[in-house]
């Protein structure tokens, strides 16, 4: 809200520098965003929090300044013969207009002042300047005065051309079905059913609290007006304003709460100005006030004040209540404070405690470390354990050269189709956002791959030749009638442009990511992991694996298929390696703490064998066959050789296994092992149809 210093000075005597005023306001919770020097005046731009509708005017802000500097705050008094309306009394016994309020909940008060024989014209210079300083443009003297009073004193007003109103009735009622009205801005609007409207005897003439109707607006030839000052239920105005997509200075104030008592004063100020500037005569004041403001009492206990903001002396509490203008008395050491119609935000004890803290200044609250018991280690929160695990995984990846990426949780669902993901795949069960910023961000991610591919493209565009990124983020799967299933995923992408490098690295990128995966399984003591040829449609069918723990698929790793690269416009001859797993599952499957086994006291014997099997047979399966052989002498099995091509038939491969034999209680002899080794080789050939190489 823009507030000119010259206007503030009409309410409070203040000589302080603008910076001092600004600081004081900011420290009172009215943050000054900027101070602008404009034509010899100073304009403060004050940001008003939604709880302070009383500060949406120059007078309101001036009142705070007066409190802040402990000065007197002066409101101009009403002159001429219009004062009686202040008390809500009508000055005409038989009004020429009838005001009907359908629902006193929605509109608690409606006042009308009828002014006749005025002249609509240009506003005087001072008035135009004030409006411009505050960011409004001048329309004509009558409208300008209603705006001036709203800016100056806080209550929105509306002037109708009296002679366009039909039936000598003003009715406040909701729209009902299929209602249309053409508003001041020239737009014909269809209004939702429960929108509160102002009607004359025949038709709607304004959208209550939001905007007047075009047909009844004040025009250059208007001579008689009906000046409206009314109260409307804030939530009703807010709902209507939102639905209509129409926000005005008036609706902004009404939806935050206006002063039902103070509105008459504002109408009087406006009337006074109209009579002064536009001429004319006030002939009637009508005040329909079915929901009278009833002040309530708040019990404010000083020991409660102490518990919330530290000790404050009772004298100081009393002084602050006086400064704020709250009437109070003391009963049994408790402050009984009356509420004020202009401060709808002060309803309960805690609201007053905040006011006390605010007016004293937060800097008066001392610093004191809490005295607390230790938190049970069992109760450190699930988040802590997960964080520790993630730190570990992240440092493993960083040590291998991968940098951490963070992408938006949104995705373009079209891209899933580009990956060839088919109907029935869970990744298509995405959560849709109703009001996305862009249509490419209309769904929540069900995978990290798409984002990482976009990151790859960004980096290639920047000329980066080795792209190594990972991301750990949640993905979301739709569940009807409840919150989505949020799963923590790990995604990794690796791409290196083919060009000479210092150290030749012959390792195929599949194995580079595989190492990471094997490392994670090791770290979390999972040994039921398995890699099977991948069924993902976007991966290279012969260079990719799906990753399993027992028989549960947790993700995949491998090389993007050439058509996938084409579809995503990744132009490269070098393989793009990707990995994505469900980390929640991985972490849940973690193995228990190992039990120590005594170190071996006797030497081992190692034997190698090579077996020719189908290329599709997983090396891991060969290992398992050996490990599952019922002999205590088998200590470990590793794959030490892999060979294809020369001397090996088409569709076959040779796998070299190294078996380590050891006994717990004696030194093994070669002869003893020879027999066992033979039987293992026989088992391998019968189970796999393979052939032992000599």
């Amino acid at each position, binding site marked *: 809200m823009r507030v000119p210093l010259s206007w503030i000075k009409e309410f409070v005597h203040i000589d302080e520098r603008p910076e001092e005023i600004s600081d004081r306001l900011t420290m009172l919770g009215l943050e000054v965003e900027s101070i602008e020097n404009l034509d010899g005046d100073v304009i403060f731009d004050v940001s008003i929090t939604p709880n302070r509708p009383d500060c949406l005017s120059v007078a309101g802000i001036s009142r705070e300044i007066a409190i802040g500097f402990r000065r007197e705050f002066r409101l101009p008094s009403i002159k001429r013969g219009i004062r009686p309306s202040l008390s809500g009394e009508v000055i005409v016994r038989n009004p020429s207009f009838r005001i009907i309020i359908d629902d006193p909940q929605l509109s608690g008060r409606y006042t009308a002042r009828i002014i006749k024989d005025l002249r609509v014209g240009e506003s005087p210079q001072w008035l135009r300047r004030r409006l411009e300083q505050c960011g409004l443009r001048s329309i004509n003297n009558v409208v300008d005065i209603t705006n001036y009073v709203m800016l100056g004193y806080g209550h929105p007003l509306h002037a109708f051309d009296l002679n366009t109103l039909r039936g000598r009735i003003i009715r406040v009622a909701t729209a009902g079905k299929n209602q249309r009205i053409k508003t001041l801005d020239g737009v014909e609007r269809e209004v939702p059913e429960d929108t509160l409207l102002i009607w004359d005897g025949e038709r709607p003439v304004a959208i209550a609290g939001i905007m007047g109707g075009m047909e009844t607006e004040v025009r250059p030839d208007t001579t008689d007006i009906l000046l409206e000052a009314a109260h409307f239920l804030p939530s009703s105005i807010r709902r209507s304003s939102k639905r209509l997509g129409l926000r005005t200075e008036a609706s902004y104030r009404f939806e935050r709460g206006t002063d039902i008592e103070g509105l008459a004063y504002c109408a009087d100020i406006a009337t006074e100005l109209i009579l002064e500037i536009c001429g004319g005569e006030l002939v009637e004041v009508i005040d329909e006030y079915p929901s009278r403001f009833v002040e309530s009492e708040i019990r404010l206990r000083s020991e409660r004040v102490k*518990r919330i*903001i530290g000790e404050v002396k009772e004298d100081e509490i009393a002084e602050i209540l006086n400064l704020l203008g709250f009437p109070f008395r003391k009963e049994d050491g408790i402050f009984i404070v009356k509420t004020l119609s202009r401060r709808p935000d002060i309803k309960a004890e805690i609201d007053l405690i905040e006011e006390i803290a605010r007016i004293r200044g937060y800097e008066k609250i001392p610093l004191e*470390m809490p005295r607390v018991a230790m938190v049970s280690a069992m109760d450190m929160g699930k988040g802590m354990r997960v964080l520790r695990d993630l730190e570990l995984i992240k440092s493993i990846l960083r040590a291998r050269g*991968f940098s951490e990426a963070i992408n938006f949780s949104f995705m373009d669902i079209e891209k899933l189709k580009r990956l060839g993901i088919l109907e029935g795949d869970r990744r298509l069960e995405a959560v849709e956002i109703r009001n996305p910023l862009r249509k490419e961000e209309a769904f929540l991610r069900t995978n990290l791959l798409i984002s990482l591919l976009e990151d790859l493209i960004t980096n290639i565009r920047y000329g980066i030749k*080795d792209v190594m990124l990972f991301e750990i983020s949640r993905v979301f799967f739709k569940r009807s009638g409840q919150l989505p299933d949020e799963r923590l995923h790990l995604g990794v992408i690796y791409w290196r442009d083919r060009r000479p490098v210092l150290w030749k690295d012959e390792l195929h990128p599949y194995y580079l990511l595989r190492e990471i995966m094997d490392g994670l399984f090791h770290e979390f003591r999972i040994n039921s992991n398995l890699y099977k040829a991948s069924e993902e449609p976007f991966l290279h069918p012969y260079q990719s694996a799906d990753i399993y723990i027992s028989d549960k698929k947790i993700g995949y790793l491998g090389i993007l298929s050439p058509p996938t690269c084409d579809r995503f416009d990744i132009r490269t001859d070098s393989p793009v390696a990707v990995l994505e797993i469900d980390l929640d599952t991985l972490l849940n499957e973690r193995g228990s703490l190992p039990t120590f086994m005594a170190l071996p006291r006797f030497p081992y014997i190692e034997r190698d064998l090579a077996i020719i099997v189908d290329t599709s047979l997983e090396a891991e399966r060969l290992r398992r066959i050996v490990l599952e052989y019922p002999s205590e002498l088998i200590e470990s099995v590793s794959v030490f050789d892999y060979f294809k091509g020369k001397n090996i038939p088409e569709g076959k491969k040779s796998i070299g296994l190294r078996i380590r034999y050891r006994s717990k209680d004696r030194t093994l002899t070669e002869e003893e092992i020879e027999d066992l080794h033979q039987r293992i080789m026989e088992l391998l050939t019968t189970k796999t149809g393979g052939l032992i190489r000599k």
Partner: protein
Amino acid sequence: MLEPSELKERFEKEIEALSELSGEVTVREGLTLLKARYLGKKGIISEALKSLQSLPKEERPSAGKRINELKEYIEKRLLEKERELQQKEYQRRLSSQEIDISLPGRLQRFGSEHPLSRTLREIIDIFVSMGFSVEEGPEVEFDRYNFEALNIPKDHPARDMQDTFYITDEILLRTHTSPVQIRVMERKRPPIRMIAPGKVYRCDADVTHSPMFHQVEGLMVGEDISMTNLKAVLVEFLRRLFGPETAVRFRPSYFPFTEPSAEVDIGCLFCAQKGCRVCKNSGWIEILGAGMVHPEVFRAVGYDTERYTGFAFGLGVERITMLRYRIDDIRLFYENNLLFLEQF
């Protein structure tokens, strides 16, 4: 027979001559030859000892002594020469194994921690060291947890402070990490001391606003928690994060779920509070929001508002990170350009 002194001179010449030979093999051969000539069974020293017989009896002891001294000397010199030779051979073998120690290792890229993760980690570490637990909550939330239980009913103007992405009427993307407060309080009784880091969403996008960003929520509830504690804990936190000299100020603000509410500022890091572009000439930078938990929030989770008091705070990780590294565009955080990421 020559005098021992003459012999010594001759030996010295011969052993020095070895150094002029080229090739270690010849040197080694020369050394063997020299050793045999002087110390061998029929070597010069043996001969000299034998020739003692021909001397008069009284001269023998002293002549013998001199010969023995000469023998020791020769042995010592030969050994030295032998060692020298070994050393040379050893040096030659190692030098043939020379690698270029000026070349870098195989890893061409070094993984970086995302600057947001780094800030988040530091924030979490500080609070954990003060005994706060770390909690989690869903990123897709019920309206009830995100707003209503936090004293923000439907049609409340405070909803304008946070532009919300909606999934359905009742389900939305959380606009802050505050719903985790509610979930934790529903689950357990005080005392509570927790933080909840995580992603939050608002439909807003420009140089300083991102539709997704990170917050850390904090909550402390007990029978005796006041705003004096709130101030002490947050000042401690900010000084640990930004340095022990950091100026901190609390000023009144408004959040529907806290009362009194405070905006917390730190003295501008860029201009020593003299006023600059970053702090809009105020000398202060807004860093987090905080306040005493509103009694309505306690009511929503069934806590006795007379018995328990507490404070809550929320801070934006992006903002702190931008300040610490002087990053001027929030979008850089999510572009994942390695030219950016590898600076951290």
